[in-house]
């Protein structure tokens, strides 16, 4: 049992599985699993910072990943000048009205004594801003979405390198996390859970329905890449000679090289984050966070501003998740709001953190890699098992058709069962948190 818990053994086993997939299925698939596994590991790291360090229950990872993804569009997509000239002015005006109203309300709240009259004024200003801004906004949206709707119909992005969006996405998400944290932190733990769940749904709804922003469900495709394109690679002499030596086709070689370079990029980010997290965890700050998690009352009694510290951790973790979200869109080269499902983007990450070992960064990393592999491979394996099971039923049997038709739904149940089993039997995860006595006796 002890060797099973050895991190080197666990990571080694993962490596072996990856090599097996490369040999049995294909190298591209293995590298694809590794790439998405690395991104998942970064998301798991972000959630682990919140849950493992501070006990904050964020079940809105999906929302932050989507914010990161949308930022990739805003940063990297080509700008659409026609859309800006069609509706930009009205849009900015509407934005200006709203911002003005916010400023007025803030000033009002500061200057006037708290009273019913003050509340009425606040409400009146808000309503007035709505009445002015709403038609402006409606007109702007209509104009923007009318610009070449088949290809753009949105404001486009800045046309900047997509790698920038990894940082900017994290910053945007940090801002969103600040707002949510201000509201929901310091209240019951359940409220943060519900608030994050809600905000995630709202973020995705906005990205799906506001076509002028990110084209909604029409998707943004063809985002520029940070790595070379396959079509260019196959022209390169060194690629050709490499594929000759290894005995693969040039096309395959190019695809492998592209995936490999993505993996390297992701691994660099992951290692940097991991290093930072480890340093933070060992620093007095990390010890304090865990002390607060283990005994919040005592920490408050010692005069720590727990809510403020929690807010910082919440922002940090959300920013990391958003960074991974931007990386995911970079890898895909497209932004598809319809694919943001809570199961895939929130709960899968939670399973990674809990199975990997909450509170341990290496655990989160391992959980991210392993669970992603399981997620990908569970489908063909599960389908194979189900087909074997129903083989006893005759072809064309109604029950057989029903089971085969709905077998994919079982993935949901399987992942849930995995979470329950992990919570029950290895609540501390594959690589448990190193026990440091934070109680300070």
């Amino acid at each position: 049992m002890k060797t099973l818990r050895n991190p080197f053994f666990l990571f080694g086993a993962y490596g072996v599985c990856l090599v097996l997939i490369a040999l049995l299925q294909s190298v591209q698939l293995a590298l694809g699993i590794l790439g998405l596994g690395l991104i998942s590991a970064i998301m798991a790291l972000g959630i682990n910072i919140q849950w493992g360090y501070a006990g904050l229950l964020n079940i809105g990872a999906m929302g932050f990943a989507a914010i990161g993804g949308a930022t990739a569009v805003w940063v990297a997509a080509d700008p659409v000048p026609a859309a800006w000239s069609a509706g930009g002015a009205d849009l900015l005006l509407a934005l200006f009205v709203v911002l003005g109203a916010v400023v007025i309300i803030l000033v009002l709240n500061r200057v006037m004594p708290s009273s019913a009259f003050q509340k009425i004024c606040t409400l009146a200003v808000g309503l007035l801003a709505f009445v002015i801004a709403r038609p402006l906004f409606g007109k702007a949206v209509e104009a923007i979405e009318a610009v070449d709707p088949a290809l753009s119909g949105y404001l486009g992005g800045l046309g900047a390198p997509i790698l920038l969006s990894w940082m900017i996405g994290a910053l945007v998400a940090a801002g969103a996390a600040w707002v949510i944290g201000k509201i929901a932190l310091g209240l019951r733990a359940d409220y943060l859970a519900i608030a994050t769940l809600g905000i995630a749904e709202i973020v995705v709804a906005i990205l799906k329905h506001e076509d002028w922003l990110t084209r909604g469900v029409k998707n943004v495709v063809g985002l520029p890449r940070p790595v070379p394109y396959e079509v260019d690679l196959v022209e390169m002499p060194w690629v050709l000679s490499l594929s000759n030596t290894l005995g693969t086709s040039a096309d395959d070689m190019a695809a492998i090289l592209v995936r490999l370079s993505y993996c390297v990029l992701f691994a660099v980010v992951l290692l940097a984050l991991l290093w930072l997290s480890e340093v933070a965890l060992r620093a007095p700050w990390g010890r304090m966070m865990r002390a607060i998690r283990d005994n919040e009352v005592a920490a408050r009694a010692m005069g720590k501003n727990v809510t403020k510290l929690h807010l910082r951790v919440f922002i940090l973790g959300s920013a990391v998740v958003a960074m991974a979200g931007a990386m995911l869109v970079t890898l895909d080269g497209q932004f598809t709001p319809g694919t943001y499902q809570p199961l895939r983007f929130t709960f899968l990450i939670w399973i990674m953190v809990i199975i990997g070992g909450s509170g341990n960064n290496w655990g989160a990393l391992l959980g991210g890699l392993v669970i992603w592999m399981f997620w990908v491979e569970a489908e063909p394996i599960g389908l194979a098992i189900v087909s074997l099971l129903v083989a006893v039923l005759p072809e064309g049997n109604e029950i057989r058709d029903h089971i085969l038709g709905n077998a994919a739904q079982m993935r949901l149940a399987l992942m849930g069962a995995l979470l329950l089993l992990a919570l029950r039997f290895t609540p501390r995860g594959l690589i448990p948190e190193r026990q440091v006595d934070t109680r300070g006796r």
Partner: protein
Amino acid sequence: MQDYANAALLLTNYLVVPGIAYGCQLALGALGVTLIFSVLRFSNFAHGELMSAGTMFAIFATWGFQAMGLSFGPVPTALVALPFAILASIAVVLLTDKAIYRFYRIKRSDPVILLIVSIGVMFVMAGLIRFLIGPDDRTFNDGARFILKAREVKDYLGLSEGVTIKTSQAITVLVASIAAGLLFWFLEKTKTGKMMRAFSDNEDLALLSGINPERIVKLAWVLAAVLATIAGTLYGLDKSYKPFVFQQLLLPIFAAAIVGGLGNPLGAVIGGFVIAFSEVALTYAYTKFLAYTLPPAWVPDGLVQFLPTDYKFAISFVILVLILLYRPTGILRGKTL
């Protein structure tokens, strides 16, 4: 004058009637959440799926009755099937409690752990439900469609607006009132109900008084299953049954429970109506209403709508946030930690 009568009818038809029906459904859902919270002290994220499971059982029973050639005239078969569905749901919750939740209760785990466990349960249930009945949209209301048709009202009153009341809406209000009434009677008047309230009020003292905790917990699950099955079936009759809808219903239901005051049954009912009416009123397009009430020159063109229906659930969230900011314990005071 006629214009104002028309405007009033318009609002009744599109705001009041649907709002009441939806409010009843949310209130029943929120009651279940609040009961589990006050007795087991965690937010049960699997409650939406419990509603879904109950509805699925009701649909299966309906199909069974239909296969036997039974029909109940204007009453939807699902209503007659309800008791069977409730029994099945009770079996499901008691089994889940025994197999999963009980372990953490005995260990006296933190409520947050139970919350995460309930998320696991939610996914297992969601997967099984979609596997059993399939992910498609289903209508299973085979009763009379309407109690009151807009046309009849129009003809009778001689006005251009009418009010439609669907059978499902009337049934919703009736069944929900009976269920909520029985629940409140049980909690207020019966010895067991009082024991349940005592347990929720002060667990340690309840134990010192000799109240059996396992019995109270089982009872809470049974009540939650009953309420969830009724709520889900009524919602399904009124709209349609789509398994994935229940994951989205979770937000308004929790919002209702928290807005009213988590752990407070009366608050859950109030919260349900607050959320339902806000949702309906803020996504309704008031163009026609304004055309009746304002002088023609003032009537704006285009939809006069606060929010598109796509953002329906954002409303429950915003109300939730406002309550959390200004009155964290809810309208009627609930429990806080």
